């Protein structure tokens, strides 16, 4: 019966009876997220994980760490305008990328170039925004990666709308949207999750809770028992996971993505992690957190955790580690070299893409700039 119903009709079928007989809907599974973040590494469950996946995650983590370091170095050389590093959060970035199928969409925030790169995007294209040559350096439709979103949480309703559209069209596309702990305070977070739940859109929200929004610690951001608990108020499942356990993050996301793909609707996933570097190269993290806290988190480094698991289980040896590092170094070297070449710029691009057809007004302004540039050249 429900199979022949449209999305909206299915929702309508849930309509509660008038409140004299009003009942709580408690059907979408257990309401509260588990009390402890899910962990896999170092537990018997880890043995069940696919070794190939473990290795892929590891290689990507190592490369991701190296990528972060390289990008930060590029800011010092003036080759990037700014870099918000995801060092320490690589498990989330990488798992988010690897969990998706070809047809799925990734909605990164400004900190998530690594997720885009791990998904296969050319890092030079991924870094366009932060390099400063253009706002988005790639075709989002080609890669199914939305533009990096700087205004926090604003990308979440986009992910919902896209997932909803895909479902209306009958495609089995899932959207995975990334947001930070700070971003959960924005109205757009709320509206996006609510629309997703009402529409049962195939979207997964991954909150990387790294404990801070720039300098503002989590306890000034929320009084909730966990960010995953926010799922309850939307009627969707909430999941809590150790964000430095790449395998656990992958597993939780994988379940959520499958659930969405099968028509089960959205899931909110909170991954507890930590940003080991400052907010960006322009930030001074010593103003708002102490070394001990950072040290405690370094001891819980996602790469170290996975490396230990792999070596303990003989899936990785010294040469494997070295190979991963070499590959990462080569990747970074290639990036460095390409970023050290000046970006190709055409100032006329300023006017080309405002409208489908350039207006007379913009034509006049473009002509003015062209004339100025020609005069400059002559000098």
């Amino acid at each position: 019966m429900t199979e022949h119903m449209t999305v909206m009709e299915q929702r309508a079928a849930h309509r509660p009876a008038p409140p004299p007989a009003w009942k709580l809907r408690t059907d979408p599974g257990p309401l509260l997220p588990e009390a402890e973040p899910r962990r896999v590494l170092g537990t018997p469950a880890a043995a069940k994980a696919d070794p190939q996946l473990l290795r892929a995650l590891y290689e990507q983590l190592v490369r991701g760490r190296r990528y972060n370091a390289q990008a930060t170095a590029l800011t010092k050389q003036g080759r990037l305008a700014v870099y918000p590093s995801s060092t320490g959060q690589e498990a989330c970035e990488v798992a988010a990328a690897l969990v998706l199928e070809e047809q799925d969409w990734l909605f990164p925030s400004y900190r998530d170039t690594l997720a885009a790169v791990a998904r296969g995007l050319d890092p030079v294209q991924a870094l366009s925004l932060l390099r400063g040559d253009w706002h988005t350096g790639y075709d989002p439709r080609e890669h199914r990666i939305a533009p990096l979103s700087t205004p926090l949480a604003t990308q979440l309703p986009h992910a919902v709308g896209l997932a909803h559209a895909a479902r209306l069209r009958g495609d089995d596309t899932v959207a995975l949207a990334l947001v930070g702990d700070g971003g959960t305070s924005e109205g757009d977070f709320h509206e996006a999750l609510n629309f997703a739940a009402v529409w049962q859109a195939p979207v997964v929200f991954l909150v990387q809770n790294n404990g801070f929004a720039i300098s503002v610690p989590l306890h000034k951001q929320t009084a909730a028992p966990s960010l995953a608990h926010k799922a309850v108020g939307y009627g969707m499942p909430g999941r809590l996971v150790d964000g430095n356990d790449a395998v656990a993050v992958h597993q939780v996301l994988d379940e959520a993505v499958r659930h969405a793909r099968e028509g089960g609707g959205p899931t909110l996933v909170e991954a507890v992690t930590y940003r080991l570097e400052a907010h960006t190269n322009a930030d001074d993290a010593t103003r708002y957190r102490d070394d001990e806290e950072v040290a405690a988190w370094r001891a819980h480094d996602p790469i170290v955790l996975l490396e230990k698991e792999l070596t303990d289980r003989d899936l990785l040896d010294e040469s494997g580690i070295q190979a991963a590092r070499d590959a990462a170094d080569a990747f970074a070297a290639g990036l460095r070299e390409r970023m050290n070449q000046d970006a190709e710029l055409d100032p006329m691009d300023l006017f080309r893409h405002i409208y489908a057809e350039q207006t007379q007004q913009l034509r006049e302004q473009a002509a003015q700039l062209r004339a100025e540039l020609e005069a400059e050249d002559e000098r």
Partner: protein
Amino acid sequence: MTTTAPAPAAAAGTKPASMAQALQRALRDALTEDPTVHVMGEDVGALGGVFRITDGLAADFGEERCTDTPLAEAGILGTAVGMAMYGLRPVVEMQFDAFAYPAFEQLISHVSRMRNRTRGAMPLPITIRVPYGGGIGGVEHHSDSSEAYYLATPGLHVVTPATVADAYGLLRQSIASDDPVVFLEPKRLYWSKDVWNPEAPSSVEELGRAAVRRAGRSATLITYGPSLPVCLEAAEAARAEGWDLEVVDLRSLVPFDDATVCASVRRTGRAVIVHEAAGFGGPGGEIAARVTERCFHHLEAPVLRVTGFDIPYPPPMLERHHLPGVDRILDAVARLQWEAES
């Protein structure tokens, strides 16, 4: 430039229709012709919208083509962005002018910029219908003229019909546009009727063209949307004073049809801009400035503005004092320095 009489002579099959009917028909035709068109907003389904513009659409096209959304304007526009990213063509209804404000971040930071941000790879063909303006006895927040905000946001088209035929034509063309269009619907003209042919309604040729609604030689009234009928009335009244006023209906505020407007002003040498929005920082300033830049030596007098006062929209019982009316327009025309001074 197009010269169109506001109520074309009755042709075979034409009959009086309201602007609301023409808008509804435009949505209906767009939904019929293009399966990617989706109408969405608060109460657009069973209710047909608080102004009944979407009446019957959910019944005829299904709730997925005409969707009652949760009550959250940023969410509505934000999800529309995502739908457009996937290739749909959302037509969003904002229930009233002032209730579009919660969606401004999505509008300014995403809707207007996505095409440019992605070097053209990701256009957003979204039409945002916004009932606007006063004169309907609406309580606070139901009568704002918010067009200045849209004008100051590069990347949007800003369109507003003043006639029944344009309501249809401009809305069809807006939905067909590959760019985001803020489509401002003058509330108090929803029930205004024109002779119109619903059998063969026609889209306009393109967005961005003003129309001369009345030819005249003495001075040009430049206006749009809800103020067009007032200007036409003023132009009639002005005949008694010996002024033969030309009336230009902008139809599109962005892009702005400098050619049509300037041709008129160069001809008449005098101009008054009329709109309901507050004067300070409103569209009139831009229009006066650009007309003056382009027609300075043809001007016998400064371009004047007749607008709402620089105040929040008044309560219903006082709104008539705020709205530009015929007398204020004629007063302004009288100040156009008919005796040459130096």
